[in-house]
């Protein structure tokens, strides 16, 4: 089945059929191999509406927007009327009236881009909403897997996501994308950071990292925030490390072909030790490098279709 010609918004990977996800990965791979294509979004006005600080995602969107030739306006949170009590709908109407066709947005509250997309006549790209979704991060993770294991080979992979699943939009979007492409997902973490409710078809829960390391092709680590100690989700980082930190000893339990990923920013000594950073399977830089072509592909896909 060919992908749909036009999609309005990308709010989560559940918006995409598996063929469309595959199309975006292939398109990203092509963009990675070719120079900028500045005619693709010529005269298309894009607004970056980020209410949360962001380094990787923000800069990678800006670079991608430049490479496809879009006119870009950045609205830092302080300068937005939303902070002055203007409603989401009013902001959407205002921006649409100026001819803005794409809004890339990040917000601390789950669901913000959904509400924006309801009101906005153009395309909305979710660059992260609360603990809910981060579809372009998941796409660049999938692109990393495709580069590593080959096209069509994500099906059948066994992937462990480790850490603070409950608060992770990256984990949620990756679970959707990985399941859609046929991978098996194992979630690993303590019950305060990984409620039993996450288990479902194709998604297993494990409470011990040691028990799964030998059987997985990929370990995706997630950032552990110190706030989790204040909120009583964790006793201390040492106790977390005992069961879940990836260290030298645990690296040796991995299969020879297995890789380790992290969406960043990572905390040395918390969810991983320095030994991970020099491990042959560490793919953080590759993940980051997929950010720009994946976001070029998403912009092109939403605005121009297939």
């Amino acid at each position: 089945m060919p992908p749909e010609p036009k999609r309005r918004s990308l709010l989560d990977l559940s918006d995409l059929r598996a063929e469309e996800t595959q199309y975006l990965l292939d398109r990203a791979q092509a963009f990675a191999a070719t120079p900028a294509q500045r005619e693709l979004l010529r005269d298309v006005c894009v607004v970056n509406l980020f209410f949360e600080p962001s380094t990787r995602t923000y800069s990678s969107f800006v670079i991608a927007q430049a490479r496809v030739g879009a006119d870009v306006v950045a609205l830092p949170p302080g300068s937005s009327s939303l902070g002055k009590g203007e409603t989401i709908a009013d902001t959407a109407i205002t921006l649409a009236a100026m001819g803005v066709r794409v809004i890339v947005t990040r917000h601390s509250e789950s669901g913000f881009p959904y509400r924006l997309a309801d009101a906005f006549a153009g395309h909305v790209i979710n660059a992260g909403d609360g603990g809910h979704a981060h579809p372009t991060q998941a796409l660049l993770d999938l692109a990393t897997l495709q580069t590593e294991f080959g096209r069509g080979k994500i099906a059948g992979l066994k992937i462990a996501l480790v850490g603070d699943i409950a608060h992770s939009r990256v984990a949620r979007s990756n679970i959707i994308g990985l399941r859609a492409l046929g991978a098996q997902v194992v979630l690993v973490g303590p019950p305060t950071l990984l409620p039993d409710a996450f288990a479902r078809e194709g998604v297993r829960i494990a409470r011990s990292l040691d028990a799964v390391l030998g059987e997985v092709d990929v370990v995706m680590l997630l950032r552990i925030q110190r706030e989790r100690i204040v909120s009583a989700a964790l006793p201390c980082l040492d106790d977390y490390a005992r069961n879940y930190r990836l260290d030298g000893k645990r690296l040796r339990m991995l299969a020879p072909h297995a890789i380790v990923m992290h969406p960043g920013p990572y905390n040395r000594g918390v969810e991983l030790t320095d030994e991970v950073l020099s491990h042959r399977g560490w793919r953080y830089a590759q993940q980051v490098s997929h950010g720009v072509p994946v976001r070029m592909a998403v912009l092109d896909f939403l605005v121009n279709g297939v």
Partner: protein
Amino acid sequence: MNLLITGGRVVDPSQNLDALRDLRIENGMIAEIGEHLPSRGEETLDAAGSVVAPGFIDMHVHLREPGHTHKETIATGAAAAAAGGFTAVACMPNTEPALDSPALIAEVKRLAEKAHLARVYPIAAITRGRQGRELAPYWKLRDAGAVAFSDDGTTVENPRVLRQAALYARDVPGVFISHCEDCALKGDAVMHEGAHSAHLGLCGSPGVAEQIIVARDLLIAGDTRKPFHIAHISSAMSVELMRFARAQGIPATCEVTPHHLLLEDDRFTAFDAQAKVNPPLRESADTAALREAVRDGTIDVFATDHAPHTLEEKAQLLGAAPVGFSGLETAVGAYAAAIPDLPLSRFIALLSTNPARILGVPGGTLRVGSIADITIFAERRWNVDASRFYSLGKNTPFDGATFERRAIATIVAGRIVMRDGGLSPTTGDALRLR
């Protein structure tokens, strides 16, 4: 007020009556019940094909006055009540300021009399300013007209304060109504904690946040012998706790809303706040347990927790949007939809007889000599259109729903205040507001 209601099926659980009867009302009181009563020239209301019941009483509504009159006023709330088939409501004290002084209670009563629609019984705060620290003056509040006491909207966090309050107020007529949610367990929740909150990345409030306070308050009721009424019970384990309390002889009753019987936590996929409510909509096991508890009598009362807000307030992001929605004008249809096979006498007991008994207010019966507060309803299909509510709050997750039962007349002290959805033209403030 004299009135003859003819040809209706009169169902009155207070006297085990379920038969075709005529009802004569004289001077606002029920004067006679019988077959084929002759007209004495009074106004006649033909109730053929309808059910004539003692007036419905919603013992849990928020009328927002004083302080939040952009959301609702006593007058618009009383109009919404009449339109929905309620002859009386009891309004919660979480206003601004809170209803914690005799003067405020008297003011609510004055505004209600001016509105001249459904009766409005004020509920006074348990603690001053609903702050959970100092006790409100229960005797003086009672003297002013308060029918019950509640810090609804929040739980009285400090168990010592609540126990002292219950002890002091033990001999004051007026039940303590408990809003059961442990603040610490609830946290910043916008919905129920479960599979849906996990998948949506939204902060959830676990069922245990309610149950732990239900258990605590039932124990305090048993310990102090002050009657407690558990508001808007929402989870299966809370129902079990109520059964335990009953078995122990603890003086406790409870209520359930239409939304906790009918709706579940799958309503947040669009991230809109329409279904955001405290306690949150829970899971199918909970709604099933609540429906069973209505059938077996564990749940005493149907109460809506009518909580009007403006469209703008409710359109905010989930985190910022206020909790609750309007309930008075959908309740009859929604309760019937929740448990279509509930015997009519039980349906009426939960909407009239039981709340009248628990609050100790007139009504709840059609016995000769009682006040002529009467609700007439019929099995009639209708579609909810929130934009046409008399309530200033036009929000409800039931907007657009089709219901099969509807109140067709509301009679207060023998005066028809609502008929076929329209309010009496002789009423006061409310009509000018429409």
